[in-house]
């Protein structure tokens, strides 16, 4: 009997559950030297903003134990150039496309959603709300239930009914299930868990912060237990809301762990920096593990760690 590796999130269907993570796959062209992009469940593009953005000054990066800090500052060409230059090329590759958007104001999210609405062939929209809100003293949208709701509502009102919305949340909150409930109530069809955690490194030679912006987002295997915890908590609270899991996945085993916690699909991010073919290796390993553990259908493994011991589970 053949194994069914396909998965779905809020009506968006994927041939396999391995996606890239936003900001970790460039424009797609960079990775296409190393594997066929159409082998991915989907490519998640770097979070794009309304206008061109230089990003932050260097140093933007610091390696940490089993992880790294980054402070890119959402460098990008702006939504118009992005839709004109990057999207047509990705469509030619035959890969499913999840566009990631990021705003500095509620109106930005509305504008971005309207722009994406006009583009055919987009599988889903990831809404990165882990960005500073310039209208609220720079507080991150996803750290506050009200602003998280406002950003997602703005997208919901403007995207139309075709493209599923996946809200990407930060784990840097007291209760991530509270934010998750708010954004789902505001119209998010799915959740992306987790964004990076805020961290800092001080260079003990210069005795100054290593990054030009002092703080940066921590990613890599160091944060995987945080991702597993967040996914598990949110899946328990909102079992009918599909989760795109991410956070330090570097092997098929790691991806399987997030799936067991409740992820319907898994994004590979920082692992690609160290290994351009990481997503392909993880995809193969995950499929082998699922088969080895007796699953005939990938979707049966989603949230399998939530079963009651001695109950109906295997």
């Amino acid at each position, binding site marked *: 009997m053949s194994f069914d590796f396909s998965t779905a999130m809020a009506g968006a269907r994927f041939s396999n559950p391995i996606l890239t993570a936003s*900001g*970790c*796959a*460039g424009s797609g*062209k*960079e*990775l*296409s*030297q*190393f594997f*066929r*992009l159409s082998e991915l469940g989907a490519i998640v593009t*770097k979070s794009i903003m309304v*206008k*061109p*953005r*230089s*990003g*932050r*000054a*260097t*140093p*933007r*990066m610091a*390696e940490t*134990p*089993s*992880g*790294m800090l*980054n402070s*890119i500052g959402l*460098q*990008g*060409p*702006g939504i118009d150039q992005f839709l004109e230059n990057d999207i047509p090329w990705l469509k*030619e*590759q035959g890969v499913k496309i999840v566009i990631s958007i990021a705003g500095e104001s509620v109106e930005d999210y509305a504008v971005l959603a309207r722009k994406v609405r006009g583009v055919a062939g987009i599988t889903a929209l990831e809404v990165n709300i882990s960005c500073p809100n310039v209208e609220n003293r720079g507080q991150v949208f996803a750290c506050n239930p009200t602003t998280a709701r406002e950003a997602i509502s703005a997208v919901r009102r403007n995207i139309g009914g075709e493209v599923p919305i996946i809200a990407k949340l930060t784990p840097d909150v007291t209760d991530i299930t509270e934010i998750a409930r708010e954004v789902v109530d505001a119209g998010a069809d799915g959740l992306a868990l987790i964004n990076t955690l805020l961290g800092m490194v001080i260079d003990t030679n210069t005795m100054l912060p290593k990054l*030009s912006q002092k703080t940066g987002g921590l990613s*890599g*295997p160091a944060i995987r237990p945080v991702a597993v915890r967040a996914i598990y908590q949110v899946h328990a609270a909102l079992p009918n809301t599909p989760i795109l899991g991410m956070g330090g996945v*570097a092997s098929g085993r790691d991806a399987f762990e997030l799936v067991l916690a409740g992820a319907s699909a898994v994004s590979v991010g*920082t*692992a*690609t*920096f*160290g*290994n*351009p*073919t990481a997503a392909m290796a993880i995809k193969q390993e995950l499929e082998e593990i699922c088969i080895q553990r007796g699953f005939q259908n990938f979707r049966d493994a989603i949230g399998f760690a939530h079963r009651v011991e001695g109950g109906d589970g295997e």
Partner: protein
Amino acid sequence: MDFPTINPKAQQFDAEVLSNKRVGSYNHMVFSVDEIASYARPGNFVAISVGGPGTSMILRRAFAIYRATVKPDGQGLLELVIAPFGNGSTWLANRQIGDLVNMVAPLGTAFGIPTEPVRALLVGGGYGSAPLFALAEVLKSRGCRVDMVLGASSAAKIYAPLEGKRSVSSLTITTDDGSAGTHGRVSDVIPAIIASSNIEIIYSCGPMAMLSAITNISKERGIMHQCSVEEAMACGIGVCMTCVLPIEGEDGVVRMTRTCIDGPVMDGSKVTWTKSREIPDGVWGK
């Protein structure tokens, strides 16, 4: 098949250590590779996994290729000069003959070779001299005159192997502490060499401050300057956006540009050299 547009010759592969010798403060390492050696050009670099299975070091380390050759039997050789400074480069420098390391190569831009014979000055800072010897060989084979200046903090940090010097008409050494050659910096001796050898193009590789100083010297004299920059990289293949510098494009617009894809070799006059930890004014999207 979708034809890749970035790093079209790059491959990911395991390479066997054939030789590993200590030279001054550095390790000269030779790796066995396949036909990728024939694609590598002076200025290209390689990104190497460090630490072995289960390591906490998740990012590759980037090294300029010292030399890439193909033996008559078809075996490719890739030579690197490693400065064992941090945990990653120290791990690499400790590899033994027969060990395998995972590489992605060749990456990045190469030094541009003039079509006509020219008088070239090659300037290396520390182990930034690594890619310059192969470049000197290519320039010499094209009939160019090649002068070289190598600078470092002290004598032990000058990398100038005997075989590398063969393609060079003159070699000037500077050290910050005066332990070898001229006491001072490369920028102290370059103007006199430009004048006496009638230099038409400068190639350089080394720390930012050195490249910035050479850019000033070359701009004042209207000399072309191709430099290989050393920005911290997480991936080396263009996806992480950490290795950027403000660089003027062909359209005259200055953008934060990846030095792994559009570099490491670039036109020094197009780079906005800045020490401040801020995006310079006028950069696109600031």
